[in-house]
């Protein structure tokens, strides 16, 4: 095993981490604020991918440009989901909430199957297959874009949460709903915002994935499992944690495939998850 091969694996893992982070941050944001574990997050990504694909197919709009449309569309979708689906069961037992979001995921998957059929779609852009070659290492250009896009969006979100009044209000609701109400914050509106943002991030992930991946009704399943690992590893509700955890997961998966075996990449990831949870049950960012 020469050094180039190992280096290639590390870089590939880092690039994958960008996408994992975007899906996971949406998930962790919704959980952090609304306290709902959204099992349909993967299907939100799928919707984002179909919107992007459709805009490209019907309107010839470049996937990156269409982020400007995809994200607002998904934001509105998220707001509607919160208003009409999540809100009525916020005080219901956990089990009811799980059934609702799992049910939503099944409905969305089958709706996509109905409207778009099971065909595998892809967007062909001039840069889909561009690759940079540096010292024997190949870097896929759309993956670099996706990684950069994920970093930018995560940065913007962090800024929004720490610098703006609305962002601070969102964090206040996440920390303590009752006290935030005393301060004159309307938690219901913050919930709408949180789920909207979470869905918009999923939409962004979808848009950034499309140039190098395929769109099909069950594509969400591929991403959501990893997103859950990332969110738990990085402590539920923590954005910095999700970023750090996605890097660990991406690189561990890639190196795992290289050294342990091509079907053992995820085994390495789960081993790290289990080990972390034994040593630090609340995840990397939690209190020990």
């Amino acid at each position, binding site marked *: *095993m*020469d050094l180039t*091969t190992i280096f*290639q*694996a590390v870089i*590939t*893992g880092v*690039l*994958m981490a960008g*996408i994992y982070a975007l899906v996971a941050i949406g998930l962790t944001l919704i959980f952090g604020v609304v306290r709902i574990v959204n099992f349909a997050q993967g299907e939100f990504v799928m919707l984002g991918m179909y919107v992007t694909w459709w805009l490209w197919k019907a309107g010839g709009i470049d996937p990156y440009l269409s982020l400007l449309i995809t994200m607002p569309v998904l934001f509105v979708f998220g707001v509607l989901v919160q208003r009409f689906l999540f809100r009525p069961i916020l005080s219901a037992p956990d089990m009811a909430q799980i059934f609702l979001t799992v049910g939503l995921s099944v409905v969305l998957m*089958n709706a996509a*199957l109905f409207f778009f*059929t*099971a*065909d*595998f779609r*892809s967007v062909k852009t001039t840069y889909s*297959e561009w*690759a940079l070659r540096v010292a024997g290492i*190949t870097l*896929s250009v759309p*993956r670099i874009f996706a990684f950069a896009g994920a970093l930018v969006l995560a940065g913007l979100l962090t800024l929004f949460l720490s610098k703006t009044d609305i962002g601070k209000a969102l964090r206040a609701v996440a920390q303590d709903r009752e006290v935030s109400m005393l301060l004159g914050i309307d938690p219901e509106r913050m919930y709408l915002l949180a789920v909207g943002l979470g869905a918009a991030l999923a939409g962004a992930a979808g848009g950034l*994935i499309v140039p*190098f*991946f*395929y769109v*099909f*009704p*069950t594509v969400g*399943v*591929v*991403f959501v499992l*990893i997103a859950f690992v990332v969110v738990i590893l990085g402590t539920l509700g923590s954005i910095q944690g999700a970023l750090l955890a996605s890097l660990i997961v991406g690189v561990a*998966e*890639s190196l795992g*495939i*290289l050294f342990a*075996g*091509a*079907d053992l*990449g*995820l085994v390495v990831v789960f081993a790290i998850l289990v080990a972390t949870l034994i040593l630090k049950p609340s995840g990397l960012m939690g209190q020990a």
Partner: protein
Amino acid sequence: MQKGRRFRDPVSRREFLKGAAALGVGAGVAGLSLQEAAGAAAKEVNIGVLYPTSGSQARFGQMCVNAVKLAVEEVNAAGGIKSLGGAKINPIYADIQSDPGVTRNQAERLMATGNLTAATGSYVSTYTLVATEVAERYKIPYVTGSIANKLTERGFKFTFQVSPKANMFGEMQMEFAGTLAGRGKRAAVVFEDTDYGTSTSKGVIDGAKKVGFEVVMAEPYTAKFTDATPLVNKIKASKPDLFFPVSYITDALLIIRTMKQLNVNAGIIAGGAGYLIPDFYKDLGKDAEYVFSVGSWNYDVNCAEVPKIAEAYEKRYGEFLMEHAGEAYVMIWVLADAIQRAASTDPLKVRDALAKTNLTKGPGSVMPGCRVEFDETGWNKRVHPVMVQWQKGQLRTVYPASDARVKPVWPVPAWDKRG
């Protein structure tokens, strides 16, 4: 209450009576036609059709259902089952949702009704193994295009397999690779880690050693990856001359795309499925060129009726008739032939007729070898796999000689030498 009254009020008594009378007449007419149907033997023959049209296998499943629809229409348009007074075939579709548990339930649901004559379905061995167990219990003949050897090696009386068996695929690939490339080559084998990949890969790995290849990599992988780079990176490090992947769809596409990106040049001799569907060329375009694969069927199979069938399918569905769908089509005609000879809708009689099947012409015979004849285990002993290659956007049969329509393009040009 208010609502109820408003609903009832506008219907006067006279109108009500009129309506009731009309209903009575209607019922009388319907009763008559029902009796007529029973008397004049224009019955329907119920056939259970089990394919996954949702879940991970939905793409393949829907293509198969399309092919079944075409075959059923053709059988019925040609006068149905003549020995039963022109009875029509009535397909009862069941979505097995890419899940063995659902497959069991759906098979039970269809077969427990007691009015099923036969069943057909699923190219996925994992599901068919379950479905045929149920069929054996209910004594319903089940015709399948799945390839697992086990299917017809369990001593079952009601399972009929039209397709080549799993071990034949690896043997065929290696026989072909040996003729093509000569001995002593470095071979890399990767396969997705479910039943399909692991069962076919064994034949490939054993076969490679037998032909005198050096197996430099043999590894299962999880098909649900989002990036093939780690896998292809590893393949690249093993420096293969020949590359044997066994994949579904997205993994197949990502592997080829990434091989191009990382400039990994090896003759690609795939194990079917994802490499044989319209999506493969639609997505990869020119990069799909020169990829070889083994298959249990292809739309240029060397039998007289095939061009017409392939054309009818393509005209209707706008894409070519792929491997599994071709078999799905053939199986409906195999069933129609058996029911015709049994002259009965009784599953037991149809089973006995199936066992005596010997089709040498017509749309029921168009498996590679152009003949369908079951041995005592229920396997079509006349069939063999074929080798195909993507050439100028077409999937063409290149091996064995008896089936080849064009010559294989070999050696395959390097990625950076292609126009």
